[in-house]
């Protein structure tokens, strides 16, 4: 009987220790993530308008954008070498964007992109919320449509590509 009790106590202890040491759930996982496959087009427009070295092309910002307009991901890369934005940089940009306000982003995506202005990064980009970089986008312009269409799950690739060139 004592042996069984000991066994139970040991098992409970092991479970508690295991729980205390377990890796937390991936904090980047969100309930309804926006499309990752088409994000490369969105990323290029974002990098163009927001990713210069003195804005979000820096590790000093919560919204951190890697790409060919500024900060590079590879240790041996440089902003001056003219290499196009890499897939690895797009992946990092995606994680940065979805990690800003995951719950709100999830809600916006789940509701088909409704009221994207709920997202701080949309408001700041449009200049409707205080933003040191003023308003790099205007509601309805190419890059704004690119972002909102992505949030709606229907990425307007053509508008994104136009936004990336403006």
């Amino acid at each position, binding site marked *: 009987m004592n042996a069984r009790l000991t066994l139970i106590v040991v098992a409970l202890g092991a479970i508690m220790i295991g729980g205390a040491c377990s890796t937390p759930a991936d904090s980047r996982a969100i309930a309804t993530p926006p499309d990752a496959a088409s994000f490369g087009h969105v990323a290029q427009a974002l990098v163009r308008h*927001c990713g*210069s*070295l003195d804005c979000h*092309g820096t590790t000093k910002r919560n919204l951190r954008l890697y790409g060919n307009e500024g900060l590079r*991901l590879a*240790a041996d*890369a440089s*902003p001056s070498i003219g290499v196009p934005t890499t897939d690895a940089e797009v992946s990092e940009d995606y994680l940065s964007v979805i990690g800003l306000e995951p719950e709100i982003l999830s809600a916006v995506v789940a509701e088909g992109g409704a009221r994207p202005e709920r997202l701080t990064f949309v408001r700041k980009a449009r200049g409707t919320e205080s933003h040191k970089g003023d308003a790099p986008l205007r509601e309805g312009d190419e890059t704004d449509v690119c972002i909102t269409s992505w949030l709606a799950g229907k990425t307007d690739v053509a508008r994104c590509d136009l936004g990336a060139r403006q």
Partner: protein
Amino acid sequence: MNAVRYVLVTSVIAIAAAAMSCDPVHSDAITALGGEAPGVGTGPEHRGGQPCLLCHDGSLGSPAQFSIAGTVYEMPAPEPATPALGVTVTFTNINDKKTFTATTNQAGNFYVTPSQWAPSYPITVSVSRNNTAACMTTHVGREGSCAGCHVEPVGPASPGRVVLAPVPVDGGACSQ
């Protein structure tokens, strides 16, 4: 009455001074720049390659405030870098295409004050002299100090110092 006024004025000055010294990040950044180079006094030729607007932000120096300023060098290497004299620095607003130019002095430095030009961002920048020009391939979003981004060594977060690359360009200009 005079005593009250004196105390009031003194208090306001003390509060203002305290407020100005309450940004340790800014203070540390200025401290990190170090002292003046030997033989170079304060003035248009001092502190080449440093982020000018860190101090010339409206509170220090004469002129107290720059809207944009920096240093241009002849070549990316070798050290020590050679300042580029007589380089035309052209700023172009991306949206309205309006431009403003400044010229480097013998220290390679240039500066623009807000009364001369207050840029509306984003802008692109090119440097040129005779038939040689170098152009930024990206834009400036808000930083008025070239050295806010252009620092040595070259790396993922910096293209290195601003140089007048020895690449002949038709007409000495860049297509923005």
